[in-house]
C-alpha cells in the first residue's frame, strides 16, 4: 500500500458520479477533405485543470473553437454541464468563459467599458460582480485607460476578468501565458489554481509550454493528428504506474547494490559506477528500511534524489518526437 494514497484521497473517486463539466464525445471536424479533429473524446471535471497538448497542427485550436461554438461540428457532440453545444448553444455556452487565442478587446474603449460590453451579453452580471472581478485581478488602476495602451500582460488579465464575469463552470484558455513575463506567468498559474480550488471551476488550458502545463495542470490530454494520443495524470500517486525513481549516491556503490538486491521492496534499475550512483525504485513507506540496511552495512549515503522524467520527455515519447507546437 502506497502511503501517499492514504494521504491523498483520490479526488476523481468523489466526483465520478457528477456530470463532467466538459465532455467531448467522438467529435469530428473536417475542413474540405482534411480531417482536422478525428473522433476526439475526453472529459473535464469540476475543479480540474486539464492541459490540452499536441504538436503543431494537432487540432488543439480547432477543438477549442468547437467547444466555444466558433466552429461547427461535423460529427459527435460537445456537452458543457450536460448541455449540447450543437443543439442548445445558449444554454451550453452560458457556462463557459474563455479566451480564444489572444484576448481581443475594442482598443478604443477602456478596460471597464470592455467589461461592460461583456456584462451586457449576460443575464445576471451586476455592477457589483464587475467590481469584484476587477479587484480579483488587480485591474483597478488600468481600468479607465484605453485598452490599446495596455501591455499584453494587462490584456491577458482583462481577458481572464471578462471570462470570469458570469461565474462560468468551465474556463477555456488558449495559451493563457502567451506573452507574459515570468512573474506574470507565475501569477497567472497561481491564480488559476486558486480559482479551480476555491470555486470548483474546471479549466482547460492549451499550451505549448510543457513545463507550464506540468506545474499548473492536474491532468494532460495529448492529441496528435486530431486524435487522442493519451491522457495522463500529473502528481496523482494512484494513477502513477511506477514507483518513484531514485538516484542514491554512496561511497561504495558495488557494496550497496548487494544490500539493495536483497531487499524485497526495492527494484534495482542500474548502477552508475563512475558517478557512484544507484538508480532504483522504492515506495516511500519502504524508504526507512532501505536507509537502515545501508547504514548497518556502513555504506555512506551522500545524496538521495528523485529522478523525475519530465513531461517533455514523455510528450516526445508519445508523439514520436514531433516538434512541439
Amino acid at each position: 500500500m502506497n502511503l501517499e494514497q492514504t494521504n491523498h484521497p483520490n479526488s476523481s473517486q468523489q466526483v465520478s458520479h457528477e456530470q463532467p463539466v466538459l465532455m467531448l464525445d467522438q467529435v469530428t471536424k473536417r475542413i474540405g477533405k482534411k480531417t482536422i479533429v478525428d473522433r476526439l473524446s475526453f472529459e473535464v471535471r469540476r475543479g480540474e485543470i486539464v492541459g490540452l497538448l499536441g504538436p503543431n497542427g494537432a487540432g488543439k485550436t480547432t477543438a477549442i473553437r468547437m467547444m466555444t461554438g466558433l466552429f461547427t461540428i461535423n460529427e459527435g457532440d460537445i456537452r458543457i454541464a450536460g448541455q449540447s453545444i450543437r443543439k442548445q448553444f445558449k444554454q451550453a455556452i452560458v457556462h463557459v468563459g474563455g479566451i480564444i487565442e489572444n484576448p481581443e478587446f475594442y482598443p478604443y474603449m477602456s478596460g471597464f467599458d470592455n467589461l461592460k460590453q461583456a456584462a451586457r451579453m449576460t443575464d445576471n452580471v451586476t455592477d457589483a460582480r464587475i467590481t469584484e472581478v476587477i479587484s480579483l485581478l488587480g485591474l483597478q488602476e488600468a481600468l479607465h485607460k484605453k485598452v490599446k495602451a495596455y501591455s499584453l500582460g494587462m490584456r491577458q488579465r482583462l481577458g481572464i476578468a471578462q471570462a470570469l464575469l458570469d461565474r462560468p463552470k468551465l474556463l477555456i484558455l488558449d495559451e493563457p501565458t502567451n506573452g507574459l513575463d515570468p512573474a506574470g506567468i507565475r501569477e497567472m498559474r497561481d491564480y488559476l489554481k486558486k480559482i479551480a480550488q476555491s470555486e470548483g471551476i474546471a479549466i482547460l488550458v492549451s499550451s505549448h509550454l510543457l513545463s507550464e502545463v506540468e506545474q499548473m495542470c492536474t491532468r494532460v490530454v495529448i492529441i496528435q493528428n486530431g486524435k487522442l494520443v493519451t491522457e495522463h495524470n500529473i502528481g496523482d500517486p494512484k494513477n502513477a504506474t511506477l514507483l518513484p525513481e531514485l538516484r542514491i549516491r554512496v561511497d561504495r556503490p558495488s557494496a550497496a547494490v548487494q544490500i539493495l538486491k536483497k531487499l524485497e521492496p526495492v527494484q534495482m534499475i542500474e548502477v552508475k559506477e563512475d558517478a557512484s550512483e544507484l538508480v532504483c525504485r522504492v515506495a516511500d513507506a519502504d524508504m526507512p528500511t532501505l536507509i537502515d540496511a545501508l547504514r548497518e552495512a556502513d555504506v555512506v549515503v551522500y545524496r538521495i534524489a528523485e529522478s523525475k522524467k519530465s513531461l517533455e520527455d514523455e510528450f516526445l515519447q508519445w508523439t514520436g518526437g514531433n516538434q512541439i507546437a
Partner: protein
Amino acid sequence: MRNMTALVQNEWLKLTKKKSFWVSPALLVAITGLVTFMLYKFGTDVEEMGSGVAYMAGMLGASGMGQFIAILSVVATSGIIAQEYAQGTIKFLLIRSRSRGEILISKYLVVLLYILMMMAIAAVVLFIVGGMAFGFGGTGEQWIAVLKQATYGFVYSLVYASFAFMIGVLTRSTGVAIGVGLTGTMFGGILIYKDFYKYVLFPNADLSVYGNMGPPLPGMTLGFSILVLVVYVALFLVAGYTVFRRRDVA
C-alpha cells in the same frame, strides 16, 4: 427584449466611442450648410423657394442630402461586421450566451438608428439654415412633404446600407463593402431601358421619383417599387444571416 436592448446599446457604444465617429455627422452639417449657402447666394430665386420648410422637403430626398446620407451610411455600415473580424473581437462577441441571429439583428438595428440619426441631423440643420435663407414659415402641406421626403430619403439610405451590410457579412472586409455599396449608389442614376431593369434594385431605390415625374421605366409604380425593395432588403438580410449563422470563425 431586455437582451436585445443591451445588445443594441453595446453596438451603439462600439460605433460612437470611436473618435472617427463624429466625422460623418460633422461632414453632413458642413456640407448641408455649404450647399444651402451656395444655393442662396448663386442659385434659386429666394421668392420661388417659398419657405425654409419647402426647401427642407426638397433637400431631404435622395436627390438632395439623402444621397449624401446614403453614402455616409454605407461607410458606417460596412465596418459594423468587418471590423469585428479585423480586430479579432468577433470571438469576444460570439462566445456569449447570445445567438448569432441576435447579434446580427442588433447590428442591423444600429444601422437603422444611425440612418435615423443622420436624417434627424440633416433635418435640423436644413430647418435652421433653410429658415435663415428662405424664411422660417412653412405651411402644413410643406410639412407633410417634409415627412414624405424624409421617409423616401430614409428608405433610400436603408436599401444601400442593407446592401453594404450583406457585403460586409459575406466578405468580412470593410473596404470591399464600402466599394460595392458606393458603386451601388452610383447605379441609382443610370437607367437601362430594358424591361428586366425595372426588377433591378437601383431604379427602385429612390421612391421620390413618383412625386414629380412619371415612372422611370414603364410599368413601375410606387407600390411596385416598394415591393421590389422589400424583396431585395429581405434577400440581403437572409443571405447575410444564413452565412453568418453557420460560418466557422477562425
